[in-house]
């Protein structure tokens, strides 16, 4: 965190100053490790084994926060009798289809409360013409649409609050994690039992009524073929310890850029719309009703999905959106499957994707398997790159590594490339949304130079030009563009006013005035809202994201700095900061509590934060039979975005690769999975292309683990740092880091050139031989890791080979992110040049026995 988020890390240092223990788990010893109380070196990609063992430690020593767990999680829920665990199936859960690699999650479901419930549900399905249980919420493309809550379950389900029923989640969890022992941690992660014990004790000692522990993570967890499940494991651990919804607790996702959180809330993703509304799919959603019915009416605020959806359509199409035309629902594009970034790259290579916008990204350096990126770009009709600098993605056609090897020839590349200069963040106003879901507004400081423009201006202008070209068209196909409600005030330079857009995102009522809360949104078309979870940021026509009241002028929660979605709640699910009866868990950790005397004895939730609960819902409220939406939230259901109100230790739906996490090895690994016969994530998405061959696991030709990471001195793919002298001089050349033991084994000399090879590519870098890279002992063997800062490419003041060229494409099935861990060889000296380089890599593939007929398999378990 100090390495990649030094500014945010000041608060960790502040916590340390106040007595917090800082534990850092990372393959390399970083700037974070340097100031932490404990550094735990771990084999890259083995985090589920590590966290799973902590879960096991908590469960087998009865260290869970029992009262919290029983009341606020689904520990007591009884799971379907048909459910089978990885314990029963040697690493698979029930419902796996080996043909498709998909799970059918129906056997993971909650047992219903009553037979009547099943009958009602079946009735509903019949009314819609479905077969019971056919909903596809579990489909991978939809997992991400639960970013604001869990997948909708069909019923709250039968519970055994003694937690003794062998089919209850708590008991299933206990059995599932029993094999995650400290000994297993040693064998899988390379972390010794003493170190494990030390961390386990520190963690559990610092959790409970009086204390809370926070987890922070970044792409060390997400960029894996099991990434979503790594975070699930941390969630389970935090729920068991009672560290969610309470001050000082939580799990913080450290995002990769200033507004990555914002770009999922108001997404740049293919499968969701603003506010995590699912993108309609062509096969299922022919009408507005079909689109919202999976979620509509379910318990919790997600049950009001129709209001959010209709208000979004109204914000897009304004007066053209009417109840008669389904509020222009048919104007929305439909997805037909996976259109994620790597799938798109493959479509480019195959010729079905013809044009590409690249905005503020440098995929030929920053995305995995750089060669596939470049082969894709070279096969486009047109490419638009908007950036601050002339990045590698814009110049691939003349200077990419494939030009050097002869695999691409400039004269034969037909792609028309448009490079457009972009305004920087100080040259335009707008908001950033950071990891705490906080929107912070920044004003424009200076005008952008020359032809540089803001993204807002670019897209607005582009849209208006297209609309002018289409003006007068009678073709139905053009209606969605022509009917767009685009009328923003602009400044002298033609740049739309950001605050006008923010107001549209916030939402407006029938009178055009800004709304104050998403509870005001209606499904009758009388309200418009660009992103329901942001509703309230512009309440009373005031840009609340622009607030800058210093913390010393307000209470410790500092609610008047910026604005946090939803409803300016600083801590999500903060109902859980109080015990079931509404009183604080402890004096020390008091936050939100029930004041029975407030409002003339009607009672309400009070505290320094906005309660993340229905303000006057008493702790003893039990929803009546058949209640829907917010009315169905019980007084002891803090997780109001979940349809059952509980934190999920076990996901009965919505996670593509299993209801509980299980450790699988990365697609390329020198280690045989000691936990199960199943070597890799069975649901991982393979990218089948000759440019993406996977190293066979356990190969002596590729004996070392490599992982990529960042340095403080550079920014992601380098476009904003390799071009600046003051940052370049701080890390002026690409390098890799290895342990002294590995250096001795391969004859590598500190400071000299080395070549790193995978089945995809070979790159060169200088080598730093350092004790900060540890030789990890796994049982009776060592595993060595090569660390690769990934910032370099061919342009800029400092240039070099891109480590991402080494990385394979095998994707997490929930979010389609790559696994940044792989295997490699490392040798002294520089790499071959030109066509000899291709031959060099080809020779490695041959010697390692890479099966080019099935390059995506890696040969571990098919």
């Amino acid at each position, binding site marked *: 965190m100090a390495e990649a988020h030094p500014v945010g890390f000041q608060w960790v*240092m502040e916590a340390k100053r106040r007595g917090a223990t800082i534990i850092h788990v990372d393959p390399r010893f970083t700037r974070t490790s340097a100031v932490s109380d404990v550094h735990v070196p771990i084999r890259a990609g083995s985090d589920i084994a590590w966290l799973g063992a902590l879960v096991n430690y908590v469960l087998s020593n009865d260290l869970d926060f029992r009262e919290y767990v029983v009341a606020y999680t689904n520990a007591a829920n009884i799971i379907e009798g048909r459910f089978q665990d990885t314990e029963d199936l040697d690493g698979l859960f029930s419902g796996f289809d080996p043909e498709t690699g998909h799970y059918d999650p129906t056997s993971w479901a909650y047992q219903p409360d009553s037979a009547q419930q099943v009958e009602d549900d079946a009735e509903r399905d019949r009314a819609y013409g479905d077969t019971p249980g056919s909903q596809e919420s579990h489909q991978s493309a939809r997992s991400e649409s639960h970013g604001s809550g869990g997948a909708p379950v069909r019923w709250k389900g039968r519970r055994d609050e003694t937690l003794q029923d062998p089919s209850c989640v708590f008991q299933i969890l206990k059995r599932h994690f029993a094999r995650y022992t400290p000994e297993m941690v040693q064998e899988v992660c390379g972390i010794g039992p003493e170190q494990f014990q030390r961390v386990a004790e520190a963690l559990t000692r610092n959790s409970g009524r009086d204390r809370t522990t926070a987890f922070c993570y970044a792409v060390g967890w997400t960029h894996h073929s099991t990434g979503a499940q790594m975070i699930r494991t941390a969630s389970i651990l935090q729920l068991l310890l009672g560290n969610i919804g309470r001050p000082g607790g939580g799990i913080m996702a450290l995002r990769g850029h200033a507004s990555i959180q914002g770009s999922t809330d108001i997404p740049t993703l293919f499968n969701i719309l603003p506010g995590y509304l699912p993108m309609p799919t062509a096969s299922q959603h022919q009408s507005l009703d079909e689109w919202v019915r999976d979620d509509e009416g379910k318990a919790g605020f997600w049950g009001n999905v129709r209001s959010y959806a209709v208000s979004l359509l109204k914000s897009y199409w304004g007066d053209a959106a009417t109840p008669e035309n389904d509020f222009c629902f048919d104007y929305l594009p439909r997805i037909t499957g996976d259109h994620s970034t790597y799938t798109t790259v493959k479509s480019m290579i195959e010729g079905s994707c013809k044009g590409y916008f690249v905005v503020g990204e440098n995929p030929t350096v920053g995305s995995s398997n750089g060669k596939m990126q470049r082969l894709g770009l070279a096969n486009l009709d047109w490419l638009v790159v908007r950036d601050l600098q002339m990045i590698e993605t814009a110049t691939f056609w003349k200077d990419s590594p494939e030009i050097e090897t002869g695999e691409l020839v400039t004269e034969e590349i037909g792609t028309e490339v448009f490079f457009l200069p972009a305004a920087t963040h100080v040259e335009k106003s707008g908001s950033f949304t950071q990891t705490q879901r906080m929107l912070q507004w920044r004003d424009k400081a200076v005008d952008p130079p020359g032809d540089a423009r803001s993204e807002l201006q670019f897209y607005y202008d582009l849209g208006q030009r297209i609309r002018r070209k289409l003006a007068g068209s009678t073709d139905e196909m053009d209606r969605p563009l022509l009917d767009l409600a685009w009328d923003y005030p602009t400044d002298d330079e033609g740049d739309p006013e950001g605050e006008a857009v923010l107001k549209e995102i916030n939402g407006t009522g029938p009178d055009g005035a800004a709304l104050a809360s998403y509870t005001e949104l209606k499904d009758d078309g009388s309200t418009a809202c660009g992103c329901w979870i942001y509703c309230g940021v512009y309440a009373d026509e005031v840009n609340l994201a622009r607030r800058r009241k210093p913390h010393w002028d307000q209470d410790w929660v500092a609610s008047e700095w910026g604005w946090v979605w939803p409803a300016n709640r600083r801590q999500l699910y903060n109902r859980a900061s109080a015990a079931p009866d509404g009183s604080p868990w402890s004096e020390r950790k008091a936050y939100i509590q029930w004041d029975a005397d407030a409002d003339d004895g009607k009672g309400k939730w009070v505290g320094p934060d906005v309660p993340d609960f229905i303000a006057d819902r008493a702790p003893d409220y039990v929803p009546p039979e058949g209640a829907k939406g917010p009315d169905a939230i019980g007084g002891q259901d803090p997780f109001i975005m979940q349809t059952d109100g509980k934190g999920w230790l076990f996901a009965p739906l919505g996670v593509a690769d299993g209801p509980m996490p299980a450790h699988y090895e990365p697609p390329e690994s020198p280690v045989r999975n000691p936990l199960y016969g199943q070597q890799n994530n069975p649901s991982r998405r393979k990218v089948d292309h000759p440019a993406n061959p996977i190293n066979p696991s356990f190969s002596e030709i590729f004996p070392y683990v490599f992982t990529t990471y960042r340095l403080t001195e550079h920014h992601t793919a380098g476009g904003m740092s390799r071009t600046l002298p*003051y940052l370049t001089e701080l890390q002026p050349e690409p390098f890799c880091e290895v342990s002294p033991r590995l250096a001795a084994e391969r004859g590598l000399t*500190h400071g000299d050139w080395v070549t790193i090879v995978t089945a995809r590519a070979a790159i060169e870098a200088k080598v730093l031989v350092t004790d900060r890279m*540890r030789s990890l002992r796994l049982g009776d063997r060592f595993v060595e890791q090569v660390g690769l800062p990934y910032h370099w490419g061919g342009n800029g003041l400092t240039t070099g080979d891109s480590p991402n060229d080494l990385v394979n494409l095998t994707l997490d099935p929930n979010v389609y992110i790559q696994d940044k861990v792989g295997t490699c060889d490392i040798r002294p000296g520089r790499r071959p040049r030109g066509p000899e380089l291709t031959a060099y890599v080809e020779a490695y593939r041959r010697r390692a026995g890479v099966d080019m007929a099935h390059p995506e398999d890696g040969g571990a378990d098919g």
Partner: protein
Amino acid sequence: MSIFSERSLWGRLDDVQHDAGYDEDHPPRMGFFTDTSVCIGCKACEVACKEWNDVPDDGYLLTGMSYDNTQALGASTWRHVAFVEKSGAGAAPAVDLGMPSFDLPGAHPHGEDQATESGDGALRWLMSSDVCKHCTHAGCLDVCPTGALFRTEFGTVVVQPDVCNGCGYCVSACPYGVIDLRKDDGRAFKCTLCYDRLKEGQTPACAQACPTESIQFGELSELRERADRRLEELHEKGVDVARLYGRDPEDGVGGDGAFFLLLDEPEVYGLPPDPVVPTRDIGSVWKHVGIAAATLFGVGVASFVGRRK
């Protein structure tokens, strides 16, 4: 006041500005307290310094010295973050380090120690942002023949590039090796403690940019108190290796205007253990020169007197 006064060249001096000729109502002496125990090595100080002061880059060289690629303070590096990797037995608190001592890369080729003890705390990575010390007795200033170096009303020491003639006397007079000549320019440059910002009541760029308050700016007297409290706090927590460097007004430079909390011997960070301003002996040198001259004169007179005989 005379440059021959021993007092201004050596020893404790509580009002350095007054000593330099400022009226007694001058502003308080300002300085830096750099607490390396909370430094995370982000180098924001280096960049902010260059941005504000328009200092050129110092060349692009991967040094192999851990993550330190700017190497040392110089004419074009006014803040410098040192990175020191200490492992194995050497990582234990140092006892009698005479010289900078850390293991050479590859010292543990078999990996047994660190592998079996992985995460045992046997590895330390020390980071420290170094800067001009703005000495109470500044050798650079005392030897400057042109008056390019001067003592500001804040007690800091600043070079005026438009006066400097590039003679380089200051370079050899600095006991810390801070000030240096810029090769393609010829003149001497170093940290000004952001004199221009101070005049506007602002914090120097490096301290402003530091995310962890490792670099603290303020009145020197207050910073010294703060540092004492911090040292005490660390000692109470069992961090016995913590020590202050440049805090003592009785040391060889009369105390530094920019001083440090270190977690090891100064040498480990590349700092001299016992810096002494080279002008310390000027006073006595002049006395001895005077005595010698008088003696010579006396001898000469005597010889003439003798000849008369």
